[in-house]
């Protein structure tokens, strides 16, 4: 049987009201080999759902992240997210060894120790966002008023965006992620405005360096100002909607499991349990390679399903239960291999501080809606909540 004759399994789209991750993931894990499927764009892909296989794909040097390679899975353009061709420095789509130059330049800013140093700033930002939400009275949309502003304001402060420009920065990044409220033209405009702004920010830091990430990256001289523009754009986009969705879904899950509030293991278990970035780790085989007993031919697209791996019984006991008491840290919510999320320690710190602060300062916080009827992002690339009505 040739590849073209193989059975094509329908891509498991999320269904409103049905559980997340989609039920077919569990059945896929049981099948021998991998699952041949077709994306809504018509791209054929191998779906990878077992934890071991996902880690194997994401660490195999014969498998590429470069979207300009022949056979790379094509997904519908999501929001205003630009592609690598448009922006130099978009290094999620660059393979080693060229990728290593970007990773090595940036990773010192995201080490465990460096992120610890940023904790007071994160705490201050979380408190300020919470002050603003509480000023609204007894109810609010937690996504719009808290979950989205926190990661945006944290990263803009880390980058050294002047205080007066932070609202501009926040509003444009929000336009990019809010697919319901913005049109494609508005998102294209927001990308152009942000790139122009980042260019000006870099020029400013060249003249007057400060104690911020942009100044320090410029000082290393490893990345050109043009590359740095793309890198900063990537940091903004990659860390915004993902973190916001984790924050909002985490509030829902913790309100249902309040005994875990304040436990330091909560962040990793929430990351595993919700796996919001299920669909983003696209790859293409450069050579023939075998994964999970399946021969993948050179030029064939691969889609590791992160939520599949994170619910694999072979890696986690009672995988569908939320249990921060387990050892969840082998989850692949941040990916795996050389492209593993650069900001993972920042996300952990943000989630930890957010939940401690939110439930301490607002002990009466409750969801102001039927949980099952909440507007989950069944349609987005990143899973999450369009809105989360809360009262206190």
């Amino acid at each position, binding site marked *: 049987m040739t590849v073209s004759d193989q059975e094509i399994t329908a891509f498991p789209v999320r269904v409103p009201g049905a559980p997340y991750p989609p039920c077919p993931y569990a059945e896929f894990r049981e099948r021998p080999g991998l699952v041949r499927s077709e994306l809504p764009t018509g791209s054929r892909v191998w779906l990878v759902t077992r934890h071991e296989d996902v880690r194997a794909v*994401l660490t195999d040097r014969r498998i590429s992240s470069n979207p300009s390679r022949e056979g790379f899975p094509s997904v519908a353009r999501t929001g205003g997210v630009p592609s690598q061709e448009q922006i130099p420095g978009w290094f999620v789509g660059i393979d080693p060894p060229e990728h290593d130059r970007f990773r090595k330049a940036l*990773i010192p800013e*995201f080490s*465990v120790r460096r992120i610890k140093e940023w904790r007071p700033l994160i705490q201050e930002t979380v408190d300020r966002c919470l002050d603003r939400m509480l000023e609204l009275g007894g109810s609010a949309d937690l996504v719009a008023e808290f979950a989205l502003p926190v990661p945006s304001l944290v990263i803009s402060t880390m980058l050294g965006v002047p205080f007066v420009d932070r609202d501009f920065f926040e509003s444009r990044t929000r336009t990019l992620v809010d697919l319901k409220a913005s049109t494609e033209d508005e998102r294209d405009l927001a990308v152009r405005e942000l790139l122009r702004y980042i260019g000006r920010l870099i020029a400013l830091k060249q003249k007057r360096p400060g104690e911020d990430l942009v100044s320090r990256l410029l000082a290393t001289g490893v990345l050109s100002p043009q590359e740095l523009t793309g890198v900063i754009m990537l940091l903004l986009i990659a860390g915004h909607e993902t973190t916001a969705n984790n924050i909002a879904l985490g509030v829902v899950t913790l309100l249902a499991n309040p005994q875990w509030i304040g436990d330091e293991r909560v962040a990793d278990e929430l990351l595993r349990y919700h796996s919001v970035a299920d669909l983003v780790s696209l790859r293409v085989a450069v050579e023939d390679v075998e994964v999970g007993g399946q021969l993948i031919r050179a030029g064939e697209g691969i889609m590791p399903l992160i939520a599949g791996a994170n619910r694999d019984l072979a890696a986690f006991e009672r995988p569908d239960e939320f249990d921060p008491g387990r050892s969840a*840290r082998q989850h692949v919510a941040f990916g795996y291999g050389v492209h593993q999320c650069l900001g*993972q320690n920042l996300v952990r710190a943000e989630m930890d501080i957010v939940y401690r602060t939110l439930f301490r300062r607002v002990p009466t916080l409750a969801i102001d809606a039927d949980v099952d009827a909440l507007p989950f992002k069944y349609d987005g690339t990143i899973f999450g909540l369009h809105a989360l009505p809360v009262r206190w």
Partner: protein
Amino acid sequence: MRIDVDSGRCVGAGQCVLAAPALFDQDEAAMVVLLNGEPTGDEVDAAQEAENVCPSGAITLTT
């Protein structure tokens, strides 16, 4: 048990520091630094977790 680290493979994720802070650290470049290559007691479990969660295979355990 003996721990070996390969800083050439390290990608600076810091997962080992979170798993076993008594055994691993990161230098100024965020690359792995081995604090103690001969774990004992509870540290053995922590070393195994560090090896398991390392995204780049930079940690090798020998028993």
